[in-house]
């Protein structure tokens, strides 16, 4: 059966694998579950609105107008940091394209040698030396890459994230290399804001009680106190505690992930090779280091081929290089992954990568349409490179436009 292909230009974010949601045509990138993020927004905006509405007028008259002004500045800063953390790319590593995945597979097979039938192949680990310490790099079966040091795979977002800290449902996104400083500043400024509002709540009640008595004060002011006091109280303990914890991590140049796993603790373990052994230097690196750009290029344009079934036998113009397998999706794996039951072979292709050109269910159909040269399932010898060619070059696969600045 032949098909006519029409090509259309799409933004790369539409074809990105993983479980992120994108808004504003790829400018905003978040996790799928956003419910808790909306709750965070509601609590912050709600509490501050009540403060501005009911206490600020009294305090600005009886104490100083600087009080609400400072509160507004702090509130806007908190919102800016929250939105920056939630909407930006945390440092997602793109998945390996088929050629790279195959190259890595070959290297692994060459390193493992001949595994006797029935025996489990050894775990895929690469040892590297970092600042004099041996660090193990694990292989990610979903992304088909050896994870760089400090990267980890988030099972909620289904992406490998560089310098993965944790997935935070309160901000609705992962916290990684690119947005860690915004996350930290968010928790820090929110702590300050909570303490500020809590303090002035108490000052307000005390001042009014001095004027007109405590019971009358409670009767006069509307029933916002229970809500605000409760929110502030719980926020204080949790957010201030979290800020303290992250301050500790920053001073040691560790991530939450490393702390939980105990990567650098214990006598027999490796010492943290990333720490400068100086608290100030560690803080400067994490908070004032360079602003890393996103490697995802979400708003870049690419060609997308949509096959339209036609009666005439028109050959396809462009197509996928290696559509050899029926297995079109990599299995969904939790963070601490277990290898596939089937031995991964070269014919497995990383399905959804940035340069993917057609929807997945149609891939198998198209494999018969293209002049794909035969590709062996396993290499004859470890040293010989198996042919990966397609008749068409993929050099002009995507339209090259300047990379747009995104969060």
């Amino acid at each position, binding site marked *: 059966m032949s098909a006519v292909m029409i090509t259309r230009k799409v933004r790369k974010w539409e074809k990105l694998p993983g479980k992120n949601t994108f808004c504003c045509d790829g400018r905003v990138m978040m996790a799928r579950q956003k419910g808790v993020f909306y709750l965070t927004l509601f609590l912050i905006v709600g509490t501050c609105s009540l403060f501005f509405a009911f206490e600020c007028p009294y305090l600005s008259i009886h104490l100083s107008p600087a009080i609400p002004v400072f509160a507004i500045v702090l509130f*806007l*800063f908190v919102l*800016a*940091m929250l939105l*920056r953390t939630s909407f930006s790319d945390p440092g997602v*590593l*793109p998945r*390996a*394209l088929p*050629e*790279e995945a195959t*190259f890595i597979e070959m290297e692994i097979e060459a390193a493992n040698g001949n595994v006797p039938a029935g025996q489990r192949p050894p775990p895929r680990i690469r040892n*590297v*030396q*970092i*600042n004099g310490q041996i*660090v193990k790099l694990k292989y990610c079966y979903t992304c088909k*890459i050896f994870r*760089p*040091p*400090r990267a980890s795979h988030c099972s909620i977002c289904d992406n490998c994230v560089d*310098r993965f800290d944790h997935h935070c449902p309160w901000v609705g996104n992962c916290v990684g290399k690119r947005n860690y400083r*915004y996350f930290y*500043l968010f928790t820090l400024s929110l702590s300050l804001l909570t303490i500020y509002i809590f303090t002035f709540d108490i000052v307000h009640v005390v001042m009014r009680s001095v004027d007109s008595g405590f019971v009358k004060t409670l009767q006069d002011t509307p029933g916002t106190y229970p809500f605000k006091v409760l929110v502030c109280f719980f926020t204080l303990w949790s957010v201030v505690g979290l800020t303290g914890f992250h301050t500790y991590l920053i001073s040691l140049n560790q991530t939450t992930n490393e702390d939980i796993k105990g990567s650098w603790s214990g006598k027999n373990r490796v010492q943290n*090779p*990333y720490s400068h052994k100086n608290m100030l230097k560690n803080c*400067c*690196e994490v*908070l*004032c*280091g*360079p*602003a*890393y*750009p996103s*490697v*995802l*290029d979400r708003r870049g344009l690419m060609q997308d081929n949509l096959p339209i079934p036609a009666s005439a036998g028109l050959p396809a113009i462009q197509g996928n290089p290696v559509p050899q397998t029926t297995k079109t999706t990599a299995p969904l794996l939790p963070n601490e992954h277990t290898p596939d039951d089937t031995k991964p072979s070269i014919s497995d292709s990383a399905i959804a990568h940035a340069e993917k050109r057609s929807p997945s269910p149609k891939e198998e159909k198209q494999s018969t349409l293209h002049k794909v*040269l035969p590709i062996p399932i396993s290499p004859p010898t470890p040293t*010989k*490179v198996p*042919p*990966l*060619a*397609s*008749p068409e*070059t*993929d*050099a*002009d696969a995507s339209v090259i436009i300047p*990379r747009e*600045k995104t969060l």
Partner: protein
Amino acid sequence: MATEFHNLQELRHSASLATKVFIQRDYSEGTVCRFQNKFPSELDSRIERTLLEETVKTLNTYYAEAEKMGGQSYLEGCLACATAYVIFLCMETHYEKVLKKISVYIQEQNEKIYAPRGLLLTDPIERGMRVMEVSVFEDHGSSGSSLSSSVSSGGSTQR
């Protein structure tokens, strides 16, 4: 037989992709972006060792400049923090400026050195800064076995 290409356009339109070679990251100094200066054996017959090593060394210098932790990056960080990072929406960061320089450099290297030898260097940022991809092309009409990496059959093709 010589596999010579005169420019990038000719490379793209008349050549077929034979294989891709990947230069991996060098993590010996931590998570800073650096690429290994180990010369891949598959390129032995295609390009002089010193040329590729020079390219990789220059790129490593660029990346080191982008990620340098010094007065300028601290100033930029503090200024941005003071404006709640709104300034990043209008201003180009130092890292982005260096990345632009890198892509110009790679384009230039491709035009001058790699395309005439039937190779194409891909900007590492297109591959998530994980690897530096070198695409090896074979001329369409040069030989029937255009799929193997046994390019040594071409004899001395270097200029």
